């Protein structure tokens, strides 16, 4: 499975996650966001970029609780809460945001 943008192909798994993290780029993120029915704003990108940094540092996609706490630490308490993150990503910040960020599905995602 996969999709194609401007002649570049992206491979995805059966749940729509990118198979190869290195293939990710902004175009892929925009495509995945449309698939998830998420309209990307500055605030969305902030979370996406945060997730990519987190993955780069730790080689895992964080669980929601961990993501929330870490965002609070980095971007401020008004953003480090599940209400804020669920407003941006209604179907689950970890799952949806991770997918758009090109990360694997979070471990321990319940």
């Amino acid at each position, binding site marked *: 499975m996969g999709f194609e943008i401007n002649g570049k192909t992206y491979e995805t798994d059966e749940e729509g996650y990118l198979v190869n993290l290195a293939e990710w780029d902004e175009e892929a993120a925009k495509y995945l966001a449309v698939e998830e029915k998420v309209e990307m704003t500055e605030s969305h990108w902030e979370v996406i970029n945060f997730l990519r940094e987190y993955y780069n540092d*730790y080689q895992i996609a964080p*669980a929601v609780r961990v993501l929330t706490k870490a965002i609070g630490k980095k971007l401020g308490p008004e953003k480090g809460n599940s209400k804020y993150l669920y407003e941006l990503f209604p179907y689950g910040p970890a799952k949806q945001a991770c997918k758009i960020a090109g990360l694997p599905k979070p*471990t321990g995602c319940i």
Partner: protein
Amino acid sequence: MTESTGGIEMEEDMSGTVKKFAFINRKAPYGTIYALESLEVVLISAAFDQDVSLVFADDGVYQLKKGQATKAVGMKNFSPTYRALEGYDIEKLYVEKSSLDERGLTPDDLIVDVEVLDSAEMAALLEEQDVVMSF
């Protein structure tokens, strides 16, 4: 101390009981799937707010070794993930002293802060656990 798989039992007493879980890691990080599987279980266990300790002994101490280069064996270097454990509120990491000594390692060679225990201290730690899982 009981040996158990933990998960099934936990469903039944979810009434806020906090149990002491120890995960013992004794195998080298690559070559078998044990180290990675253990880490996954530990990350999942964090969702259940249990009292989790990680123990590294024998070749398991290599899991925490700095500077792992895995490209040649075609596996992902997952050692940075041990540094994420703190964010999951898993902060009790213990390493067995003689295992370090025998391999010429010191805590400075490890990617995370650990507490070094001798075998008597390790035995005492394991004695006070409710569940011990060995990988």
